């Protein structure tokens, strides 16, 4: 249903060139080149501290990159005269810690961005919100406040909120790692369904099984650089780089 949206001319939804990011003297991202194609599902894996979250946060400018370019629709959005807020509406973000608006109920969480940022009418916004709340299976909980929901439900609402903005690409930063094992399943199920609809998705995850199953491309990061990328088959079954091999060995058994 989302695949049918607008006609995009570019094959790359976003293209990142020579991206770097330092915190003080600590260089966290080093000369990253990377792009996401339309309709593609990309999973980013790598050990803790390798810069996965920072990459995602740089892409939607929650962190200001120290260098490089982020090209969206042919323009470098790091130029000063670019409307950042407009660009951000094109990228939906799902956080590890949900970050639902605590003061708003489920429905309003999915509406507020539409009416205030996209300037949709209230009834349009409600229809869109209900549509995506149905997708995540939470259309019956619209009056609940975030604190009344379980973690899995919260994360599904967060996905619906991101979808309601009808973005070009959805970014996920470890969407299941704050969840109880039983709730992981329900969120991954929703994400699998979304991946099946042709939505463009960029997912940072520790769930290797899930990554293997849904992704068109897997990116392995280590110490601020992209060490290796390729199909799940390539990365998981035939890793080339020593670091990739070591990482996969570590995570697949404890």
């Amino acid at each position, binding site marked *: 249903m989302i695949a049918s949206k607008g006609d995009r001319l570019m094959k790359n939804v976003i293209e990142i060139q020579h991206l770097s990011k330092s915190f003080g003297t600590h260089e966290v991202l080093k000369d990253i080149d990377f792009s996401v194609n339309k309709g593609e599902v990309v999973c980013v894996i790598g050990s803790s501290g390798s810069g996965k979250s920072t990459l995602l946060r740089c892409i939607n400018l929650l962190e*200001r990159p120290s260098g490089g370019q982020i090209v969206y629709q042919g323009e470098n959005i790091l130029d000063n005269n670019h409307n950042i*807020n407009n660009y951000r509406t094109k990228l939906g973000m799902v*956080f590890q810690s949900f970050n639902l608006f605590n003061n708003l109920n489920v429905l309003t969480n999915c509406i507020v961005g539409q009416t205030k940022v996209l300037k949709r009418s209230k009834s349009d916004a409600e229809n869109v919100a209900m549509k995506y709340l149905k997708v995540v299976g939470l259309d019956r909980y619209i009056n609940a406040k975030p604190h009344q929901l379980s973690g899995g439900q919260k994360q599904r609402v967060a996905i619906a909120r991101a979808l309601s903005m009808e973005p070009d690409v959805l970014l996920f930063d470890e969407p299941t790692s704050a969840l109880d094992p039983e709730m992981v399943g329900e969120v991954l199920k929703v994400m699998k369904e979304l991946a099946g609809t042709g939505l463009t998705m960029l997912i940072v995850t520790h769930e290797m099984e899930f990554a293997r199953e849904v992704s068109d491309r897997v990116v392995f990061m280590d110490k601020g650089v992209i060490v290796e990328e390729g199909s799940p088959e390539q990365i998981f079954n035939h890793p080339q780089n020593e670091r990739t091999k070591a990482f996969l060995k570590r995570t697949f058994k404890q």
Partner: protein
Amino acid sequence: MSIDWIISIATENWEMFLRGAWMTLLIATLGTVFGAIIGLLIGIINTIPKPERGLKRIVLKLINIILGIYVGFFRGTPMIVQAMVVFYGAAQAFGVDMDRTFAAIFIVAINTGAYMAEIVRGGIISVDKGQFEAAQAIGMNHWQTMIHVVLPQVLRNILPATGNQFVMNIKDTSVLNVIGVTELYFQTKSVSGNNFRYFESFFVACILYLIMTFVVTKILHYFEKRLDGPQNYQMIDDLEQVEGKKA
């Protein structure tokens, strides 16, 4: 101190006491409300993200410095002096003839605003960073983030501190009699000056102060409870009943 005296003072002067209490409540309430608004505005302005360079950065820095001076000055000097300077100083220097009650509310408001600015700052800091990020991530600008997401949560957090401020204002209006506002403290002084019964007169006033602060505290506690919603989380079974409203 004698009960007879207290009763006779209360019955003979109840109108003066009540009018004084009313004036106290008026000034304290409006002063607190406007002060809270000032504090919230400063909170919004203070947290505007500063670009790394450029004119906007300089302007923002300048505004923050000015607001810092405002807060420092009004927190740092006694309200009685502020009242004198504002009321008499404005008249002397610019020939402005302010209404006394207006001046009183104005002074309490800017004074409270300075305190509230600090309280709001603390409140904004205590809101989870994720709330800001989530709002930014859907493209909200600073103003929208603040109005729709952050401030509603800040308001809940700062309610207790605001209540303290309100209670203090009820008592601190007493210094405003230097600009001729006849609030409860001044009225009581008149009564005790007339009847030469200091303790008895102030006993009556204290009862009124206690009633006012007690009622204000209770009202604010009620609001806190209401804003918190039900303390125990609802069971899913119950929650599903909300569906009736929609869909």
